[in-house]
């Protein structure tokens, strides 16, 4: 078995990271489907756009900050500054959770102002699109929590930068996706 799995060559990029790049293309298409449907519907009679809750500006700031912190975490990992890495990964996870919390507050505000699934087509689009994005963020937070636990694991030392690079790539993607969605809702509104 050892011989079977011997190394013939190394790849240009870790396969998981490469696969993630392709997955990013795929997820982008899903949001392209959602937002193009939104555009089609927004041109029909009786459409009333949703005013984006103010707290979503804070959401944007939080997710951008988390993107910066995971970038710094990657650098810390690369230079083996493990204490700094642990701190930055923890900060990223907290910022991610804060993002989801602010999203929830925003949804609640909208719901309280009678923008419900039944009463507003624009509102239901808004909930679904931002909700599906939030689900992707939750997926990223789970990855961050795993990294966090591995970083504090005293029994096994993990020094490969591939997991944090892959998680970082995903996190930057959900950050950019949010910025796109936020700008989209502001512009179309």
């Amino acid at each position: 078995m050892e011989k079977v799995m011997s190394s013939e060559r190394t790849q240009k990029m870790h396969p998981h990271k490469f696969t993630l790049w392709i997955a990013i293309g795929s997820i982008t298409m899903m949001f392209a489907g959602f937002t193009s449907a939104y555009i089609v519907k927004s041109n029909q009679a009786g459409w009333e756009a949703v005013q984006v809750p103010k707290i979503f500006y804070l959401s944007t700031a939080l997710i951008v900050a988390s993107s910066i912190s995971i970038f710094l975490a990657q650098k810390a990992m690369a230079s083996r500054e493990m204490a700094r890495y642990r701190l930055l990964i923890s900060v990223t996870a907290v910022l991610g959770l804060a993002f989801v919390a602010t999203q929830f507050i925003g949804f609640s505000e909208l719901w309280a102002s009678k923008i419900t699934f039944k009463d507003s087509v624009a509102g239901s689009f808004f909930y679904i699109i931002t909700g599906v994005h939030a689900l992707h963020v939750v997926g990223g937070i789970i990855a961050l929590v795993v990294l966090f636990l591995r970083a504090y694991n005293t029994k096994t030392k993990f020094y490969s930068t591939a997991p944090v690079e892959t998680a970082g790539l995903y996190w930057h993607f959900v950050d950019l996706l949010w910025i796109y969605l936020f700008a989209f809702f502001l512009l179309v509104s």
Partner: protein
Amino acid sequence: MSNETSHVHTSVVSVPHETHDEVHHGHHHETFLTKYVFSQDHKTIAKQFLITGMFWALLGGLFSVIFRLQLGYPDAKFPWMETLLGEWAKGGQLQAEAYYALVTMHGTVLVFFVLTAGLSGTFSNFLIPLQVGARDMASPFLNMLSYWFFFTASIIMLSSLFVQTGPFSGGWTAYPPLSALGEASPGSKVGMDLWLVSMALFVVSSLLGGLNYIATVLNMRTKGMSMTRLPLTIWAFFFTAVLGVLSFPVLFSGFILLIFDRHFGTSFYLSDIYINGQALPNEGGSAILYQHLFWFLGHPEVYIILLPAMGMASEILSVNSRKPIFGYMAMIGSLFAITILAFLVWAHHMFVTGLNPFLGAFFVLLTLLIAVPSAIKVFNWLTTIWRGNIRFTPAMLFALGFVSLFISGGLTGIFLGNSALDIHLHDTYFVIAHFHIVMGVASMFGMFAGIYHWYPKMYGRYLNNTLGYIHFWVTMIGAYLIFWPMHYQGLAGVPRRYYKFDIWESFKHYDGLNKFISIVAIIVFLVQILFIFNFFYSIWKGRKVTTQNPWGANTLEWTTPINPGHGNWAGEIPEVHRWAYDYGKDGKDFIPQTTPVSADESKH
């Protein structure tokens, strides 16, 4: 894109993939469960996809036999049918709701579970690592998940057949309002929910598979295997995966909106609906929006089904003609052109939805443009076999059958691609005949060709040739006898999806033809059972493969042991020195890709 130079990760502590694999597999003790059930070996996963796909093909085929009996003998009573289907066939006669449910299930499972998962899932999984020179997929774990998502989707779809209100019956396209309103029909209740959950899992399975296929082709090729040395099978699987990865998520978004319409009171697809004179509260929705989202996948889906068959036919035609493929780069270019155009033509399914005529003309133009790369492919296949030393193996016959069906089905596509003609032919049997020939049966032929050709690599034994010939000729003649007459019915305006036609004076004179089609369909179905017998019998009792490369092929899979283990090659992965189609060159019958190019060799 070349892999000839090794590359070090940008990270401080680099973990090359093989080392990663070693960690992952090297100390991995294989039990029965990890070897045969939850296997991460791409070859085992391929077989799992194939056998699950065969189960669905048999069931989907059986559904068609039952509803063809209804169309051929609308007033006859078959007591055995009541025994088999119970309430669905009360008094031995298929009920209308059951007819629609069977038609829906037939379309759903044949398109998605057989010709997508069964075809691409089997051969992409089996051939990509073997033909690019990789130990396994980029992520064997995700690959395993891909199968189990498919399996779970299958179980859920199957279970929908047993719910009291029946499975979904609104057609495989699941257009609203039939799919969005539980009140629309019995099948629109739990059956539709199960359909949606099953399809959602199926989409996840397809995406996981597609991600792996693309990553493996681009990132895991062996030394010397440049992109322009890839076999055409791999190019076809690659473009298929690209199509799937970019179009399935759009369908997924459409499904999410549908789920919300069904259960959370939203109005994405519903508006101004009255049930029993009572207006529903939905406002501002449009079923056309669903159609856009559906056909953005739905049309690429045609090529998700066709491209793998094209790739395998190319390979098999070249091997069995003992000639190089004609116009290799043109073949890749036409696959690429088809992939791009496949995304740009979806609205030709919607010419009768009130589409702006200017937009319609645009989609007519793009649709007809697909004829160009398709014609290039047909020309190149014919020139590949032209004056070849042809070996008429069952695989070769099915590959030739594929080309024949692709031509005849493709030609009728030119009629339907024109909006002016499509308005007349829309929703008639002409459409049924067209897509069954070009997409359904042609791709099925590609799949059969692949099974006959790569069976020795899959199981280390041969399929029985005599049974293979019977299988081919009955299926080939039968396919034309079933679908050719349908063109005439369609031209005469016979509509699709109808439960019975004998109550209309204008369609009564097709009764005899409907009987004829139904009888041929039953014969063709029976011969598929013969194939399935051949398949399973040969796994244990078939003639053993004794040579490593029984077809005298050039590609890398034939350099592995007769029964390759997990990891494919016992030693180093072979290095590639040439393309895959050096047949009949410099007086040699074939030159494998692993043979170094000699100084005195002529250029291909």
